[in-house]
Structures are given as C-alpha cells and as structure tokens.
C-alpha cells in the first residue's frame, strides 16, 4: 500500500506548494510513490481524508483555520509544516506586534466579515508537529529529502547549521567581510543553498534561526557595520519575525537610540 499524502494550505502565498509543482519529473515520480489524496492546487480534493503524511503550508490566522488544523492533525499520521508561515508564522506575523483590529477596520468597509485570530501563528503553537521544513519558500530538494526519508521509514536529517557553512562549501566570498553587507548568514539556518551570497548580497534570514544563534553578537556586528538600532531590529523582525530567537533580539533594538 502506498502511503497517502495531503497538502493543505493556510495563510500563505502558495510559494511552498510550488516546491511540489515546480519539481518537474520528480512530481511524476512522487505521484507514483505515494497516493496524493488532497492537494487542491494540483486537483486533488479530499480535505477530510485520513492520511499518512500531511504537509501544511501557511500560518494559522483565523478561527476557521484553527478548526481546520485541529481536524487535520487528528486525521494525519505524520504532520510536516512547510515554510516560514507554517513553522514560524511567516512575514504576516509582523501583525502580531500591532493592533490589527484597527487595521482591518480602516481597510475593509465591512470589517465584521473579516474574522481574524489576534495573530498569525505557527502551526506548532496549536497542534503537534512531527517535522518542520524551514524556508521562505522551501525548495524541492528539501521536500524530496524529507519524502524519501519518510518512505524509508526514518526521520529526515534536520538541517540547522548556519548558512555560512553552505556558503563556504560553495566557495562563495563572504559579503560581510568584503563589502560590509549586513549578512544574516551567521545566525540563519541552512537549506537554501546560500543563494543570497552567491548573487553577491546579504542573507536576510528567510530560513529562520540556526541552531545556537548568537543573535546578540550578530546584532552588535550589524551595529559595527553602521546600522542604526531601528534597522538592526528590522533585520531580525523580517520573514521569520515570530521565531523566538529573532523576536527576542528584535525587542532589544526596537525603540533603542543609536
């Protein structure tokens, strides 16, 4: 019996699902290895089905989404969050720091219709998550590694080293040392392939915090490079702003004087 798989979407941009849809031939191979039962964008609709593996894209940001994720958890053997939204609340968790009620009222003529939870939150704050794939967006390589490992019946290896290691394995030249760019690689989780330094720019931490992230030292370095406190706070308060290590460091600099 082939394992059954579902891909569910919550508050997100669809970019992580594209790791499936952009997989090319691997998508066809995958469809031969597993039974996809729910994946709306690819044309499979059975939201309520019990599955062996459920992939979750997107953050939890409405009462309806909370109900859905609870149901999905019950129906799923192994639950994998894919991407920054699902694993850390995503860019849209920026709203967690503001008074959204006011925002929404100021925006929509009929605010009652727009039901929002107070915040945009990661799936793991509501239900048990068996595996987190970080990244905004995740890529096909991560997905293939995870699916293959699960098919072998083992947990995928966690990739949580710093981006710097991948950067140096590719023999990229450090953009912080040669150009003074405020690169977040030293506190950011690997997995993307160090693509920002490879195009000559600073990493902006879209893969979230690495293991042992020395965010305080990183922040002081950014200060040394000439960033004012407001911009240091923004470096941490970005794609993975709700991830604890980044959230806490950002707080240290918000409202601080240069």
């Amino acid at each position, binding site marked *: 019996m082939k394992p059954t798989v579902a891909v569910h*979407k919550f*508050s*997100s*941009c*669809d*970019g*992580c*699902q*594209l*790791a499936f*849809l*952009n997989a*090319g*031939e691997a*998508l*066809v191979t995958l*469809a031969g290895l597993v039974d*996809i039962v729910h994946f*709306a*964008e*690819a*044309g*499979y*609709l059975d*939201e309520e089905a019990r599955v062996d593996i459920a992939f979750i894209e997107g953050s939890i940001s*409405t009462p*309806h*989404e909370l109900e859905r994720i609870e149901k999905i958890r019950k129906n799923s053997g192994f639950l994998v969050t894919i991407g920054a939204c699902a694993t850390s609340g*995503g*860019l*849209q968790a*920026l*709203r967690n720091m*503001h008074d*959204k009620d006011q*925002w*929404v009222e*100021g*925006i*929509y*003529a*009929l605010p009652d*219709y*727009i039901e*929002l939870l107070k915040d*945009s939150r990661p799936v793991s704050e509501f239900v048990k998550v068996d595996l987190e794939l970080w990244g*905004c*967006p995740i890529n096909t390589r991560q997905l293939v590694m995870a699916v293959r490992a699960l098919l072998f019946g083992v947990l995928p290896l966690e990739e949580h080293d710093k981006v710097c290691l991948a950067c140096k394995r590719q023999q990229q030249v450090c953009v912080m040392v040669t150009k003074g760019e405020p690169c977040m690689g030293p506190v950011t989780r690997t997995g*993307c*392939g160090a*693509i*920002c330094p490879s*195009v000559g*720019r600073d990493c*902006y931490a*879209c893969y979230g915090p690495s293991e042992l992230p020395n965010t305080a030292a990183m922040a002081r370095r950014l200060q040394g490079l000439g960033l004012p406190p407001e*911009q240091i706070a*923004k470096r941490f308060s*970005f*794609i993975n702003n709700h991830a604890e290590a980044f959230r806490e460091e950002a707080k240290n600099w918000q409202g601080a004087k240069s």
Partner: protein
Amino acid sequence: MNGSREIDIHVPVLARVEGEGALDLKIRDGHITQLQLRIFEPPRLFEKFLEGRDYHEVTDIVARICGICPVAYQMSASHAIESIFQAQPGPWVRAMRRLFYCGEWLESHALHIHLLAAPDFLGFNSAIEMAAQYPEEVKRGLRLQGLGNRILRTLGGRSVHPVGVRIGGFYHAPAAETMAALLAECRAALPEAEALVQWVATLQLPEDDQDFVSVALRHPDEYAFNEGRLVSSDGLDIAIDQYQHYFREFHAPHSTALHAHYYPQGDALDSQAEGQPYLVGPLARVNLNFAQLPQAVQDNLNRTGVTFPSRNMFHSALARAAEIHYVLLEAIGQLENYQPSDAPYVAVTPRAGLGFGCTEAPRGILWHRYEMDEQGRVCRAIITPPTSQNQARIEEDLRLSLENLGLDQHDEVLRLHGEKVIRNYDPCISCATHFLKLKVDRE
C-alpha cells in the same frame, strides 16, 4: 421543463487554482439569484507591513505576496520606487528585467496550461492523471515550466521569491557562459512552444461569445510587459499614474479580496456609481497588442484559425500559449545580445515622493503606488493585483456562460462548467488577498 427547479451549487474548495476560493451558486425559477466567487483566504495585510520598511527591503517583502508571480511584484515595486528616487537603471537592467519577466511568464503560463487548465478540457481531475494518457504533453509542459524556472534562477538565485533583485537593477550579472547555456536551452525549446500553440488549439475550448472590456499595458516599440501606458478595448489610453481615476477597488461582502471596477468616464475616485467589470491578463493583452507580437507568433496563431481580438474568454488558453511562444523568442533575443555588466544596478539616492509602477504579471496588470519619506522608508503603499481586477469580470462571465450553457443542465455539468470558467482566468487567490486598501469610502 425544470425551470422551477431549485439548484444550490456549492463548491467549497476550488481545485487547480492558486489559493483557496469557493463558488456559491443559487438558481431559482430558472434565474441565477446568487452567484459568488467567494475568496476566503485570510488577508495578510501586506501594504501595512510595508509601512516604515526601508526601500531596499521592499522587493523582498512584496515577493511574498505571491509565490507564483513574485517577479511581477518585484518589478512593479522597483519601477515605482525608482521613479521616486529618479533613478535610471539603463539598458542593461531593462533588458535583463525583460528576460527575468520572460522566465516568470513561461513558468506561470506553462504551469497553468498543463497542470491547471488542460485537465478541464481533456476530462481529468489532475495533470498527474492526465499524464497517464498524455505523457508527452505533460512532460513538455513540465519542461517549459522548468525552463522558465531556470531563467528565473539565473538572474534571481531561485524561482520563488527570487533574491537577485534590488531597487536599481540586479545584485549580480550572470556569467557569459551561463547565459550561453541558457540560450541554447531556449532555442531547443522553441519548437515545443510552437507545437504547444497548435496543441492548445486542438483542445475542445467551449464556444462562448461575450462582450467585455480588455485592459492592458501598451508600449510603442514592443509587446508590453514591463512598462507602457494603460489602454483598453474601448479606447482608454492613460499614463499609469492616472489609474486611480479610472479604476476603483471596493469590498464585496462575500470576499476577503477587494474587487475592482472600471469607470470609462474617469473620476473613479469620487464616483458614487458602480463601475463596470473589465478583463486583464493574456487574452486582454493579445486582444489589444496582437499586432506587436513577432510575425512568427502571429503566423503560428493564425494557423490555428482563431482570430484576435477574440470575444471567447476560453481563448485565454490560446493567448497564454502564444505568449509562451513569444517570451521564448524574446528571451532568445535578450540572450543573444548578452554581455555581462560590471554595473548590474544603479546606485540610488533615497528621496521623498510619490511613485507608481505597473507591469504585466502573468495574470494581468499589477499596479503599485508608493509614498516614501526622505530616508527612503515607505509611508504608504497601495497594491492592486490582477486577480482582484478580474474578479468582477469572472462573476459576470460565470453568469453569462452558465446562462449560455443553459440553466436546466445537470448540477454536475453546471458545477464543472462554472469551475472551468473560473480556472480559465488562472485566478491567483493568494495574491488577491494580500493587499488591503488604506482609504475606504464609507458612505
């Protein structure tokens, strides 16, 4: 005969569209009494997040509005902000932006034709099912999509949320060898693109004659996609900064996405009246700018026997295929002339001001408006994506085409046709809800 039948059709989750939306249809006494494309994606309030952010963060933020057309967001934003900063990126950047955009059209169009739309016309639930019977066609689609992604990666580092873009141009210039390899790939793919147009023409595209207004960018010298004036099939011809005088967004109660209407007489900003639906996207573009397509693309289209402008919305599929053919030719042209540059971007100096950017996303015009302060921080942003512009048109089309089909048809037939109509627009629901308007009339 069953004119008094009560039909309630509810499609809770639309398959094969980007993002999640639903269709609600009520028919009473042979009339459609309720028809809603409901979009319930939670809003992600992006325009609000932009406030206070630095200009150099904007391209990385707006990319996240949509995983399928991040380039469009990055391009519209870059143009708007560069216009405020009075920066002129120059011909190299302009050429590479066109190439970059070709990658996105190719990837997005190929994905829509093969993975999302074709199963409709061939009677499958998914492309993967379809692959069993049409393996070559599906593989061709995946190859074209893959090539689009590779173009995006070459300039952007990755195809979803590319990292290579900055205000003023690109972070890096690819090596000449890399571009030569890409050129060879594009040349090899050209026959596939030509064949694709003919193949799409063989699909059983429903006949459905409708009257609608097309809106697209037009450029004097080229098939427009990254700059131009806004023109319409009923004679509008305005600069992009005039957009808000002719188009207005409003909040329809059944949707978290804003809808947009067109006001041909102008003054949309203070008009009390309702405007009218309009179409953006591939069919609107081909309808308006057919003559600017390269001769080879025109000839190839003409061979299908379909003439443009077309009043059949289902010819969108054909327009999309023709645009694939077009972007391959365009990419080949840009790559043939490629020279690496020492200056892949112009340095910019922040200034305060108001600026506009409008480019053709795969699904149609994507309009941005920014106010910046003198440190180059965003004060206010307004983003109007194509799907919200099309939404009123989709609902209008649904009404018309279901009536054309005959409301006495079986529920299942009505539902399928309704979905087919929606999918034909390649709606990007994720995009549609990622914006919010800051100023709302509350009468």
